[in-house]
């Protein structure tokens, strides 16, 4: 087992808001190995994007980030601005949801790929240009050389996202964070972009943290999956295992709510209740109010336990493990 490229340990992100302090990410621990795709799934507002931005150091000043984020063993939380700039686009890279707003509309696409190279490598402009054209071909832009000087609006959404990927991966980073990279794309294009990401990851050994609210996307490409709810990482498992035997009540409910999971046509399962308001005092397990099997211990933060290779934070599961003979 090779050493993890990206390790998050007890990562916590708090914001000060008029009502009090909100912890948008509550002590998340997870790691991604080289060449591995870890999917992070959860509904809107569960903190997955905040987590991604925290890793890249892109959160505004008002955010309080604590815990540990280590890239190739180097602690980057609390790193100087200078060091962060050296790392970004170089050792760690990030791509965002909407390709039409990720690129500068007034610059040529090629220059935006070459720009990443020039920012971190001491090579000449012409060399960088050649390298950029190579990259553009690698991500599947037809006729890259003549399209180098075209502005972004002359490309389709899928093509633009490929360019974004080329620009992000130009310097062969160890870690790639992809925040909803296919959400803004057509379903048919989604598959293409996802397979591009997986192919690049495999060829270059990049560790990929793929964030999505779409379980289908995760199922297609991830090796490992982490499930987030209201800022907490509630379950983490290899992809097949997560879908085959989900442990956490939220994961179960999520999978049951998938239209395809339904046996009875005409009725969709819903998870009763709402995501809690993150301001103010919250119970240790934030799923408490909506959980069918909650108990008194759930006021305290669950300690993660392992079921086969699934790591889950749930008192109900923990109980079952320590008392296997007790009937549920």
């Amino acid at each position: 087992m090779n050493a993890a490229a990206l390790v998050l340990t007890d990562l916590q992100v708090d914001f000060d808001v008029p009502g009090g302090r909100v912890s948008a990410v509550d002590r998340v621990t997870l790691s991604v190995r080289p060449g591995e795709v870890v999917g992070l799934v959860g509904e809107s507002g569960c903190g997955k994007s905040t987590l991604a931005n925290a890793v890249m150091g892109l959160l505004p000043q008002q955010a309080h980030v604590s815990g540990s984020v280590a890239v190739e063993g180097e602690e980057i939380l609390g790193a100087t601005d200078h060091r962060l700039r050296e790392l970004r686009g170089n050792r760690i890279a990030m791509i965002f949801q909407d390709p039409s707003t990720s690129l500068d509309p007034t610059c040529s696409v090629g220059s935006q790929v070459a720009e990443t190279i020039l920012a971190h490598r001491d090579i000449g402009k012409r060399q960088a240009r050649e390298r950029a054209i190579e990259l553009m071909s690698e991500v599947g832009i037809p006729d890259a050389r003549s399209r180098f000087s075209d502005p972004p609006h002359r490309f389709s959404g899928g093509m633009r996202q490929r360019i974004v990927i080329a620009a992000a991966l130009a310097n062969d980073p160890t870690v790639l964070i992809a925040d909803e990279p296919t959400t803004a794309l057509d379903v048919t294009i989604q598959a293409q972009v996802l397979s591009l990401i997986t192919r690049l990851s495999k060829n270059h050994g990049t560790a990929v943290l793929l964030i999505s609210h779409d379980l289908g996307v995760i199922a297609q490409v991830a090796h490992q999956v982490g499930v987030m709810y209201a800022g907490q990482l509630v379950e983490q498992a290899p992809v097949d295992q997560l879908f085959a035997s989900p442990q956490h009540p939220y994961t179960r409910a999520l999978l049951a709510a998938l239209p395809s999971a339904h046996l009875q046509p005409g009725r969709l399962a819903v998870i009763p209740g709402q995501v809690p308001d993150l301001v103010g005092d919250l119970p240790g397990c934030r799923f408490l109010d909506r959980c069918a099997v909650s108990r008194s211990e759930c006021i305290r933060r669950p300690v993660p336990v392992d079921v086969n290779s699934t790591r889950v934070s749930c008192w109900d599961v923990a109980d079952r493990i320590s008392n296997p003979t007790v009937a549920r």
Partner: protein
Amino acid sequence: MSSRLRFIIRRLLQTVPVLFAMSVFVFLIIRLVPGDPVRTMLGFRATDTNVVQVRSQLGLDRSLIAQYGSFVGGLFHGDFGTDFISKSPLRELLAQRLPVTLELTVFALGLAVLVGIPLGILASTGSGWVRRATDGFVIAGISVPDFWLGIMLVLLFSATWGLLPPSGFVPLTEDPQQNLRYLLLPVLTLAVAESAYILRTTRGAMESVLNQPFVTFLHAKGISHRRIVYRHAFKNAAAPVVTVIGIQFGVLLGGAIVIETLFGLPGVGRLLVSAINQRNYPVVQAGVLVVAAMFIVVSLITDLIVGWLDPRVSDGAL
């Protein structure tokens, strides 16, 4: 043919109907005067014979179409008509006056841009007190009437300190140093309000651009802050700023009319005002034509610059 070239040609062609409409309006100025413009022009000297004579001199007795035809035809030959009072051809008068107005407005715009844009960029990326200071400057610059500012400056620099002349003019070609001395206060007066607008627009445009997702992606690529602000943000913000500068030039021209009167500069604006007071309609017509044409030309130039800056505009994608 490249799309940029197509855009330039398209924009140039669009100017034609604009110039046409403008010329029609200017042409109608004399003809819309209630009552008989000729009698008004002649004032107490109007006798029946006079009136008929002058009317035929000015060509007002012919059909409107014929009049417009000779009006436009004259323009193409550089014939702007004749000064009603001095009887001299307006072409020479305009040739004397136009450079003065041009110098005043171009210098004022230049100064305003040199001050407004850098301060605007600074205000968008700067700290709290920088913002508040520029806010105050902007509000003051916009609210204070420019001719009052001019008078106050004269009070200070001329009357009290005797550093600069309160009025008068010397052409640039004759004596550059004196020319600048006479122009300093007028240019400064116009530039203050103008730079306030430019500052405000620049700051707003920069702030709006810096909030866009592609800037976040630039940070994620590890691009330096300086490069983001100047190479990317400013380039995107430049288009709306240039557009506003073009629009504001109209305000500047209006201000020039007043400032020329205030500082006794022999420009087209002051000519226009005195012509109106004298009911010297041919001069009014020529003056309005020239000033409006200046504005149209500047608008054209700024539109072309915007098209060059933002490929979406020249592709017609915006």
